[in-house]
Each structure stands twice: as structure tokens, then as C-alpha cells.
């Protein structure tokens, strides 16, 4: 008979530290995206903001899972979906205004 409590504790610990390490890595990638967003011309900035939105959305989702902060999930879904859709729309606008 195995100790269920210690097994659950081990699994929770692995998941927590995995999620936490991934969140730190995403934050570092978010800093790179922020640097991209603050320099360069318009489309490069749009790309940086898009990557920053992804980083923020995933971090918020992980915060919701490991710390059970419920409002973070709604914010994360809004950031991830609207960030991607908004990037596509603004890229089309840039192309129409400055290109053809």
C-alpha cells in the first residue's frame, strides 16, 4: 500500500515547479518581445506586442492554474484570442495603408 498523500504531494511539487520555471522562461521571452516592441518601425513593434501578448496570456493562465486566481483565466483568454486576431487585423491595415 503506497502513501497517497506523499504521491499527491510529489506530483503537485513537480507540476508547481515545472509551471513556475516555464513562467520565468516566458517572462524572459516577454522582455525580449518588449524590447522589440519599443524599437524599430511599426510592423516590428506590432510583432513585439503580439509576442508580449502571448507571453502575458500564458503567464496569466499558469497563474490561474497554480495559484487558483480565477479572474486571471478570463484575462488570459482575452489576451490570447484578441491579441492574435488584433495582430492580423492591424497587419492587414498596415499593408493597405502603406503598401498597395
Amino acid at each position: 500500500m503506497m502513501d497517497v498523500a506523499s504521491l499527491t504531494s510529489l506530483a503537485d511539487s513537480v507540476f508547481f515547479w515545472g509551471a513556475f520555471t516555464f513562467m520565468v522562461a516566458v517572462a524572459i521571452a516577454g522582455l525580449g518581445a518588449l524590447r522589440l516592441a519599443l524599437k524599430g518601425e511599426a510592423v516590428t513593434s506590432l510583432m513585439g506586442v503580439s509576442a508580449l501578448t502571448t507571453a502575458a496570456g500564458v503567464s496569466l493562465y499558469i497563474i490561474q492554474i497554480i495559484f487558483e486566481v480565477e479572474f486571471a483565466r478570463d484575462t488570459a483568454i482575452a489576451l490570447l484570442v484578441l491579441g492574435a486576431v488584433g495582430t492580423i487585423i492591424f497587419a492587414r491595415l498596415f499593408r493597405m495603408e502603406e503598401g498597395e
Partner: protein
Amino acid sequence: MIDEIFVILYGLAIIAFVAWNIKKGTFVIDPNKLIPSLIIVFVVLAIILVFNGVPFDTAVSVVGKIGAGGIMFAGVVPMIGAAIGLFRFGDEYGPNIFYARNHITGIIDTVASLVMIFGGLLIFRLDLVAVGFFFFVLIPFCGNALANAYYYSYQRRLEK
């Protein structure tokens, strides 16, 4: 104490394996063999736990959480690599560096969405899987729209 040692060894092993794959530039073990082997190992682990008196739902939850933690550890190396790439490739490389940066942000998006999909599947969070899948579908359109906008606005003007 045993928990912490296991977490450190497990995380370091996965991070080292992913880094080895990235350094080699291809898969060290063919994914057609690696993924079924991992699935079999986790199923056998769950069966062993059930036969040792652990309730079925607890055994599946424990194995799923350990797997999801492993997937998140595996996502660390590409994310750090993407961050290094974003800091490394500055404007001194000319206007075409935009496409390299577009590739790097695509890696950030792809790793994030794959971690959401497979992590969500292993911890039975279908909302996470749905959002990750929706995001995964949008990534190519996003990258293509950005590259298209850059080419037709900025780069064509530079060439003129």
C-alpha cells in the same frame, strides 16, 4: 526532501534532453518512437500505482501532473533560446532581420500553445486545451500577415 530532489533531477534531465535535441539540430530519438514509449511508460506507472492500492483517479491525476510538469520543463529551453535570439539580432543586420525575428516570435507562440494543449490534456483542463488549440490555429495567419505587411509597406519602400 525527496520531493525536491526528484523535481530537480526530473527537470534537469528533461531540460538537458531538449537542449541536446536543439544543439544537434534534429531529434535525438525519433518522435515516432519517443512519444509512444513515453505514453506506455506513464500508463504502466499508473497501473503499478493502482495495483499498489492507490485509487484509480488519484493514480491518473498523479501521473498526469508529473507529465504536465515535464512538458512545462521541456518548454523552458526553446523559450530561453527565443529570448536570447530576440536580444541577439538587432537592427545592424539590415532590413531582412525582420523575418528572423518573425520566426523567433513564431517559436514563442508555438511553444506556448503546445504547452497549453498537452499540459491541459494531461491535467484534464479542457478550457486550456481549447484556448491553446484556437491560438495554435491562428499562429500561421498571424506570422504571414506580419511578414506580408512588412514586405508591402516598409521593405518595398526601402527598395525604391
